[in-house]
């Protein structure tokens, strides 16, 4: 058990570090999309060895982490930082769920990256940080106490930042800096909350139901609530919650598309996990239910849902639109969490899955258009369906999923979210919540479907695409990864039974 757990974190990290050292030993190459001819394209730095190395490392790591996840409840204390603080890993329901999603998305994005990153350059560095990020995520998801979680939260930020500023352009560096600054600010808010809870909690270890010691808290309720709220805001930064969501639309568009897919579908969820851990595993929901913290949190989440959709609706840059959409969609999850009822929590967890696959798929399609035609704006995509019907078809499927149309997974998650809100019996929010979710779904349709419609039916205008003599077939790597994601969006929607059962069990455990 120990070997599995440590292997699942250690293997990707070591292989990433080795690759990084290797890439540092040679000169790095980056700086924008350099135009290259076909012959040059084959002489890129990558090569079969690199891919073999990366994929063997990745598959072994995925194997380790999945084995660690599904073979019993393992826990490992790795290191004693101080007498009272240890680096401690523990697998539980939440960890299992998130790790499985990450372990599906990561190889898919990896396959996609092969053709995509060959063009972008700097492959060694990219894959090094890609592997490192997987290791850090594993550590983060399996973290068994707050300090370990905080450590890996910071490390995730640090290893995902180079993915954002991969291109090395001025814009990318600025975006990377913004991402880092926002994330660190958020993390520090979380950290000071942790310092605070360290005194008021019986233990830092995650226990469903919380470890807050009411005897110590009594008389200091206000300040503890304030600390929890600051932590919520802090960890909410990663999840793109208002008011600190601005890094998302800056960082995602400049990152290479597979990196933005990974960021948007997985790394953003790190904030969600952190909030689940803090609220349900450390502070305990009894302490928060009915307090101003819960109401403010709900309000912020709903505001973010609405604002994000509106901003996405108005945005013309394709990837930026998707980034705003992430802002909005992740707050669906946060809203579900803030309700603190069983159905809403199941909905939130389902939406984690749904949004993970769907947003990953959407960013990857955006990447395909960018890769082959260099089209990054929505109006340029008119008529693209004629050239790439399969890709746009997948895009349509993902869009339907995100809007929440059956039989996709997105429908289920939103159904449960609305159900949970209606059952929660919280005044105003019980009806306001579903209403805003509905409005946001319309807006989602409004910003995603026109791309499909104009893509397949460009109308009278002749598009530039007609004249370009480019090949219209997509690389197999990209095609496969898109299809895989499409399957993952559809299948659980059509056969939801086992998933629903797992999620509702998880929700009961979390809410204990």
């Amino acid at each position, binding site marked *: 058990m120990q070997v599995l757990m440590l292997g699942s974190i250690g293997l990707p990290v070591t292989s990433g570090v080795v690759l990084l050292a290797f890439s540092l030993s040679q000169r790095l*190459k980056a700086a924008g999309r350099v135009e290259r001819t076909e012959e040059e394209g084959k002489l890129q730095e990558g090569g079969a060895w690199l891919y073999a190395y990366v994929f063997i490392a990745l598959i072994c790591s995925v194997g380790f982490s999945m084995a660690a996840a599904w073979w019993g409840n393992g826990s490992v204390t790795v290191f004693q930082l101080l007498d009272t603080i240890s680096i401690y890993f523990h697998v539980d329901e939440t960890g299992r769920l998130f790790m499985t999603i990450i372990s599906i998305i990561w190889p898919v994005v990896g396959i996609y990256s092969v053709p995509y990153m060959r063009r972008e350059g700097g492959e060694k560095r990219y894959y090094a940080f890609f592997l490192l990020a997987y290791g850090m995520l594993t550590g983060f998801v399996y973290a068994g106490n707050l300090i370990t979680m905080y450590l890996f939260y910071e490390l995730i930020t640090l290893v995902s930042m180079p993915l954002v500023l991969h291109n090395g352009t001025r814009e990318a560096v600025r975006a990377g800096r913004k991402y880092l600054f926002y994330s660190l600010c958020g993390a520090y808010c979380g950290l000071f909350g942790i310092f605070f809870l360290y005194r008021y909690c019986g233990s830092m270890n995650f226990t469903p139901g919380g470890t807050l010691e009411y005897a110590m808290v009594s008389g200091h309720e206000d300040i503890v609530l304030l600390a929890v709220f600051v932590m919520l805001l802090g960890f909410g930064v990663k999840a793109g919650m208002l008011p600190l969501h601005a890094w998302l639309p800056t960082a995602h568009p400049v990152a290479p598309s597979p990196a933005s897919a990974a960021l948007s579908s997985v790394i953003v969820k790190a904030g969600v996990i952190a909030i689940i851990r803090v609220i349900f595993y450390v502070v305990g929901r009894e302490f928060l239910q009915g307090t101003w913290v819960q109401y403010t949190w709900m309000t912020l989440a709903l505001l973010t849902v609405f604002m994000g959709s509106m901003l996405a609706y108005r945005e013309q840059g394709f990837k930026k639109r998707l980034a705003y959409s992430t802002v909005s969609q992740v707050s669906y999850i946060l809203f579900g969490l803030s309700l603190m009822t069983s159905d809403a929590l199941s909905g939130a967890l389902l939406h984690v899955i749904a949004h993970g696959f769907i947003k990953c798929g959407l960013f990857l399609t955006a990447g395909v258009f960018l890769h082959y035609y260099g089209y990054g704006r929505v109006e340029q995509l008119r008529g693209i369906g004629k050239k790439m019907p399969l890709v746009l078809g997948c895009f349509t499927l993902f869009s339907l999923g995100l809007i929440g149309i059956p039989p996709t997974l997105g429908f289920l998650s939103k159904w449960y979210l609305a159900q949970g809100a209606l059952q929660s019996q919280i005044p105003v929010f019980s009806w306001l919540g579903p209403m805003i979710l509905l409005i946001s779904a319309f807006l989602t349709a409004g910003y995603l479907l026109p791309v499909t419609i104009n893509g397949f039916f460009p109308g009278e205008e002749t598009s530039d695409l007609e004249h370009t003599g480019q090949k219209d077939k997509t690389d197999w790597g990209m095609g496969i990864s898109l299809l895989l994601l499409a399957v993952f969006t559809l299948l659980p929607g059509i056969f939801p039974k086992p998933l629903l059962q797992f999620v509702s069990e998880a929700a009961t455990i979390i809410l204990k």
Partner: protein
Amino acid sequence: MNFVCNFPFISIIITLFSGPLCTILSGKWAKRVNEAVIVIVGILSACVLGYVGGTGEAFVYRMGHFPAPWGNEIRVGVLEAFMGFFFCVIMLLCMVAGAREREEEIEESKQNLYYVMVNLLLCSLLALIYTNDLFTAYVFVEINTISACGLIMIRQNGRTIEAATRYMIMSLLGSGLLLLGLCFLYDLTGHLLMSNIKEQVHILAQTGQYHIPLMVSVGLMSVGLAMKSALYPFHAWLPDAYGYSTLSSAAILSSLVSKGYIFLLIKIFYRVVGFEVLTGSKVANVLFVFGIIGMIMGSLNAMQEDQITRMIAYSSVAQIGYIYMGIGLATQEGMVASIYHVISHGATKSLLFVAASGLTAASAGGTRYRNLAGSGYRNKLAGIAFTVGSLSMVGMPMFSGFISKLFFAQAAVGHAHKMLPTFIALAISTILNAAYFMKMVISIYSPRYGGNEEEDASYAVQDGWNYGEVSHKEMRRNGGKVIFMKDQPVKAAALICFIVLNFILGLNSEPIIRMIQKGLAMFG
């Protein structure tokens, strides 16, 4: 009495006499003598540490065998011995790392004078740590000031002379206040030995006699030493002094000299004034307030600073603010946190200075953000070291900075009035730290940009961006400056030692914390 008990005295004497010895030696030999002395003193201190750790109680060494109220004494506990050892380690690393810069920046004829100053500085630091006599402490404070001035001024240009003058004025003002406070205390108690003064002060405090003069003298001594260690409003001398002096001077000044004064202050609080008297007085609150202001203002100044060494120097102002904040909490935990931070900051700040010099060297001497872009690729080890130092400063777990932040926060939680200000100041200062340090880290790993496209292109050629895999040889041929580890093996070794030291402090802090607690108990 065990033979080991002579070691503290022997180390002070060795360093004291090796100073004048260096005046008659050539620069090269002076350097060797200096390194040998530091190593020997380090080993002696380690022996003393082992001995004191074994016996579990502090020992008193009488100089010239005169009995207590008249004779001069040395008193050594775990903490003193550890500090002596730690200072030697850091000083050795700083001296080794800065050797090349010294050769380039200091005139041939003055090389040996530098080592005179360094030896005297080490001597005075050791004396400050070990002595049990308040007046001896004052004498060595003066020696410390003079040798520190020499260290700043040895690289002779307008900037350093101005900086040294400033330092001299501020520092002498500080010593003056210390002397005044000391005189008051002598007047009140009739003693100069710390233990004897403490007994008398205890009686005074119990009877309530001479309350105001006592407080005045405590205040004067605190302010005097705070001034000398660059607590916020008295920090004006610091950025120039650290920013323009030669590398080893900057590293030693920032990580050792100011820390020596802080250690003396803590010692005065415990061994002279008595902790109960201190907690009863308002002096601690003053230090607390200025510490907090320093934490924030220092970081703000550092943020506005464009030049890497001055940025690091301003960050020192903030870190010294942390230390005074911990002292100002006037609790046992606060003191432990402060002393841990003295150690952690000493190790980190010198690392940052050395790494920054490596980056500067790889950027053709440019010290600004613009020039340093991409230097992490041109001098890889320095880049990694700077990243490690920055992560430690911003409080990443596994590094020493995190542990000290944790202890500061723990010391503050539960403190009735000071909890919230401490938390807010810690949070703001941490965020600001992250802002400028991480900005620098990103900058050293991103391409250089010039004013226009042409310049951009020429930089790209020099640094090998944009043009596929370019070897370092090609970059050199293109006019880029690249530094390999094998070019500067000694500096590389020093950097690696610094990095390892940081990890040790961050990952293995429990024994150190326990030792600090034990040492503070031995103060009593």
